[in-house]
C-alpha cells in the first residue's frame, strides 16, 4: 500500500510539473506578428489556402498567419461574437453581409474600413529580427491595388462591401464609401437539368420562365408519376429570389425592414402549396438532404430512379450534381419571372464568402501595423493565381476577371466537368446578381421566410398564417 501511495504522489507531482510546463508554453505564437484568420473551409480547401499563406510568409518574413476553421459560416459568426467581449477576435474572417451587420450593431469600433487601403499608393516598411538576431527591414511599395487591378474586379461583387448597403451605417461612424468587406469567391444558383428525361417527355428546351416550368412539371408528372419534377435546395433563396424577380419586396435597409408579408407572396405561396400537393416540388428541408442526391438518381419508371428532372442548387455544389453518365444533363440559369411589360426578370442571388477585417484582437501592441499586414494578406488571397487555384478546387467563381486569362483555369474550364460548366455559366450571369440588404436581424429574416415557404408549401399552415408567423418571429 505504501508503495502505491508513493507512486501516486510521485505521479501527481510529475503531473503538476507537466501542467506548469504546458501552462508556460501557452499561446506560443507571437500575437503581435501573427494574423489570425477564421474561415469555414474544409480540409481540402485549407490545403489550397496554405499556398496563399506560404506566399505571404515568404514575402513578409517575421509574420505568420494562423488559419483556423471554427465550423460553418454560422459557427464563424458565433465564435467572433464570443470573441469580442473577450478581446480575442481574429484579424480576418469569412463573412456574410448579415454577420457584418451584427458585428456593426454591437462592436462597430472593431470593424476596419478597407477603403483606406483599397487603392492606397502609400509605402510601408517594417523591421523584424531574423534568425541570426540581426534587424532586417522590409519595404512594401504601394500597398493598395492599382487602377489596372481594380478594373479587373467584378464590380457587382465589390459593390456589396460598401457601408451604404448596411442599415444605419452613419450612426456607427462609417461613410457610404467605407469598404467593410471584400469578396473572396462567389457563387450563385443554377438549374441542373436531366436532359434525357426532358426529351422523353417531349420537351425540347429547359424552361426559361417559371410559367414554362410549371407547364413542364405537368408533362413530366404525367409520364413519370413517381418522380419529382423540381427540387429547390434553399427555401430561403427561393423566396428571396422570387421577391426580387417580381419586385414584391422582401426586406429594406431602412424603415421597418420587413416587407415580405404581402398579398403577392401570399398568392405565390398558395400556388406552391398546390404544386406540392400534386407532387411537383421538393426542397432540402422537405427531403431532409441536399436535393442533388435526388437529381443524380435519374428518372424512370423503374424502382430506385425516382429523382428530379429540374434541380436548383448552388453553382459551388456542381460536383454533386454530376450523374456520372447515368443520363445527359445540362446546366442552365434559373428561370425568370414574366413582367407586366412583357420582359423577363432573371435575377439570381449572389452568394459566397466575403472577407471582413477586424482590429483590436488579442491586445496586439501594434494595431496599425497589424492592420496593414492583414491587408497585405487579403491581397494575397485575392491574387489571380491563387484565386484560380481556389476556384478550380472549390467550384466557386473568382472575384476578378483576369483569372480567366490564366492557363490552368482555362484548361479547367475546357475540361468539361460539371464544376467547370457551372462556373462558366455563373460567370456570364454576373449582371443578374443581386444581394439583399443587410441589417441586424437580416439573417433571421432569411431563416424565417425559408420556414414560411416550407410550412406553407407542405400545407401545415395556410400562406397568410405562415407569413404572419414569420413576421412575428422577426419581432414585428
Amino acid at each position, binding site marked *: *500500500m505504501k508503495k502505491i*501511495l508513493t507512486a*501516486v504522489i510521485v*505521479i*501527481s507531482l510529475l*503531473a*503538476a510539473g*507537466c*501542467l506548469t510546463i*504546458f*501552462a508556460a*508554453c*501557452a*499561446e506560443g505564437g507571437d500575437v503581435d506578428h501573427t494574423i489570425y484568420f477564421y474561415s469555414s473551409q*474544409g*480540409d*481540402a*480547401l*485549407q*490545403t489550397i489556402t*496554405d499556398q496563399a499563406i506560404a506566399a505571404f510568409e515568404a514575402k513578409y518574413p517575421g509574420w505568420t498567419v494562423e*488559419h*483556423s*476553421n471554427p465550423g460553418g459560416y454560422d459557427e464563424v459568426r458565433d465564435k467572433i461574437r*464570443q*470573441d469580442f*467581449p*473577450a*478581446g*480575442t477576435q481574429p484579424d480576418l474572417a469569412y463573412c456574410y453581409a448579415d454577420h457584418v451587420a451584427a458585428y456593426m450593431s454591437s462592436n462597430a469600433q472593431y470593424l476596419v474600413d478597407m477603403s483606406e487601403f483599397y487603392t492606397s499608393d502609400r509605402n510601408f516598411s517594417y523591421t523584424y529580427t531574423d534568425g541570426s538576431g540581426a534587424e532586417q527591414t522590409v519595404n512594401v511599395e504601394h500597398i493598395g491595388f492599382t487602377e489596372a487591378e481594380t478594373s479587373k474586379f467584378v464590380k457587382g461583387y465589390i459593390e456589396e462591401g460598401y457601408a451604404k448597403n448596411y442599415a444605419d451605417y452613419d450612426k456607427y461612424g462609417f461613410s457610404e464609401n467605407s469598404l467593410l468587406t471584400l469578396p473572396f469567391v462567389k457563387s450563385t444558383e443554377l438549374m441542373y437539368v436531366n436532359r434525357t428525361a426532358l426529351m422523353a417527355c417531349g420537351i425540347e428546351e429547359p424552361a426559361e420562365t417559371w410559367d414554362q416550368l410549371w407547364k413542364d412539371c405537368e408533362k413530366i408528372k404525367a409520364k413519370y408519376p413517381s418522380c419529382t419534377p423540381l427540387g429547390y435546395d434553399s427555401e430561403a433563396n427561393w423566396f428571396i429570389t422570387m421577391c426580387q424577380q417580381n419586385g414584391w419586396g422582401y426586406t429594406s435597409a431602412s424603415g421597418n425592414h420587413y416587407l415580405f408579408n404581402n398579398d403577392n407572396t401570399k398568392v405565390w405561396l398558395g400556388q406552391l402549396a398546390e404544386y406540392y400537393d400534386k407532387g411537383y416540388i421538393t426542397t432540402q428541408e422537405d427531403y431532409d438532404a*441536399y436535393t442533388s*442526391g435526388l437529381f443524380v438518381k435519374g428518372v424512370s419508371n423503374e424502382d*430506385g430512379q425516382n429523382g428530379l428532372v429540374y434541380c436548383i442548387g448552388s453553382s459551388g*455544389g456542381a*460536383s*454533386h450534381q*454530376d450523374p*456520372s453518365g447515368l443520363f445527359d444533363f445540362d446546366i442552365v440559369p434559373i428561370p425568370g419571372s414574366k413582367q407586366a411589360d412583357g420582359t423577363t426578370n432573371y435575377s439570381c442571388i449572389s452568394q459566397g464568402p466575403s472577407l471582413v477585417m477586424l482590429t483590436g484582437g488579442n491586445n496586439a501592441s501594434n494595431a496599425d501595423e497589424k492592420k496593414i499586414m492583414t491587408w497585405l494578406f487579403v491581397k494575397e488571397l485575392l491574387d489571380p493565381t491563387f484565386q484560380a487555384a481556389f476556384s478550380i478546387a472549390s467550384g466557386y467563381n473568382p472575384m476578378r476577371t483576369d483569372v480567366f486569362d490564366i492557363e490552368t483555369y482555362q484548361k479547367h474550364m475546357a475540361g468539361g466537368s460539371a464544376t467547370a460548366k457551372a462556373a462558366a455559366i455563373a460567370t456570364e450571369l454576373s449582371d443578374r446578381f443581386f444581394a439583399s440588404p443587410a441589417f441586424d436581424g437580416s439573417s433571421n429574416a432569411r431563416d424565417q421566410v425559408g420556414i414560411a415557404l416550407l410550412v406553407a408549401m407542405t400545407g401545415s399552415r395556410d400562406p397568410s398564417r405562415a407569413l404572419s408567423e414569420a413576421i412575428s418571429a422577426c419581432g414585428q
Partner: protein
Amino acid sequence: MLRLLAISSSAAGWILAALVCVIIAELVVVLRLYKRYRYEKSTRIAADAVHIDWSQTQYVRLEQGASELDVEKELKRQKVVGIVKNVFVYIFLTACALLAFLPFYWMIISSLKTEDEYREAVPTFFPRQFQWGNYKAIMNQSTSANSPTFWRILLNTLVVGFMSTTIGVIITVLTAYALARMNFKGKNILFAIMLATMMIPGEMFTLSNYLTVSKLQMRQTYTVLILPFLVSVYYIYLLRNNFMQIPNSLYQAAKVDGLSDMGYLIKVMVPLTAPTLISITLLKFIGTWNSYIWPRLVNEQQWQMITNWVTGSFVDRGNVLYGGRYGDSDPLITLKMAAVCMVSLPLFILFIFCRKYIMRGVSKSGTKG
C-alpha cells in the same frame, strides 16, 4: 403567478394545469410508497414472527397428513412452475438487453457498410460487404496542416484526462478531508455553499468562464481544458461521506501516535477509501473523454478533444472513398458511425476491466463524469 397565467394563452394554461396534476399525482404515489415503506419497516419484526409461524405450521401439516409421493409431486409441480417463470424472466431480460444493445449494433454495422448500402430504402441488418475502408478513411488525415491527426487528438485527450484526474483527485481528497474531519470556522457554511452550486445549471458558467480564460491568455492550451473542471463538488461530497464513515476513534488513536492531519489523511484515510478513489478517478476520466462543448469553445482544432473529432470534419473523405460520387459537403454517416465506434471502444474496454469500480462510483455519485 396570476400575471404569468394571464399572459399565457388559455390553452397553455390548461397544459400547465394538467402538468401540475401529473406532478401532484406522482408526488402522491411517491408518498404512498414511502408510507408503506415505513409501515413495512415497523412491522418487520411482526412479519418475521409470522414467517416462523407459517413454516412451522407447514412443517407440521406435511408431517401429519401428506404421504411421500404427494411431496414429490408437489415439488415437481413447483419446479415446473419455477422453470416456466424463469423462462419468462429470461425472455423479458433478453428483450430488454437486445433493445439496450440495438443502437450499438446499429452503430457498428453502419460503420461497416458502404454509404450506398446505408442509404438504401429498406435498411439491411447486416452489411452485405464489409467496408473497412471507412475506418481507414477517418484515420488517414487529409494533407492539410491545420487539421489535427487522430493521434494528436488522442494524445490531447489522454494528457488532459490524466492530468485532470490526478490533480482533481488530490484536490478532492484534501477538500473532502477538511470538510469531514477538520474543524475550522465557517466550514458548514462553506460546505452548504458548495452543495448549492450543484443545483446551478453548468451552462450559466460557460460564457463567463470563456471570458475569464481569454483574459488569462489561456486559450489553445491543455491548462484551459483542465483547470475549470478540477473541482467537482459531487465527488467531494461523495468522498466526504466516505471519510465520515471511518470511525472517529482511529483519528484519536492517530493523534495519540503523533500523526499530523496530513499524515493521518495519507496513511489512514486514503488507503481505507481506495475503492471510492478509484471510482472517482475512472468517472472523472470518462467525463473528460466525453467533454465536447468547452473544448470546442476555447480551443482550436489542434487542441481539442476526441468528441470534437467525432463531430468534426469527415466531409472531405467522400472523395477518397467513393471517387467523387460523394463530394466535399456531403456528410457520410458511415464515416461518422465509424468514428463514434472508435471513440466508444476504449470506454467499453475500460468498463469491462473496471466494471466493479465504475458501477460502484456511479451508484454512489449518480453523475456522469
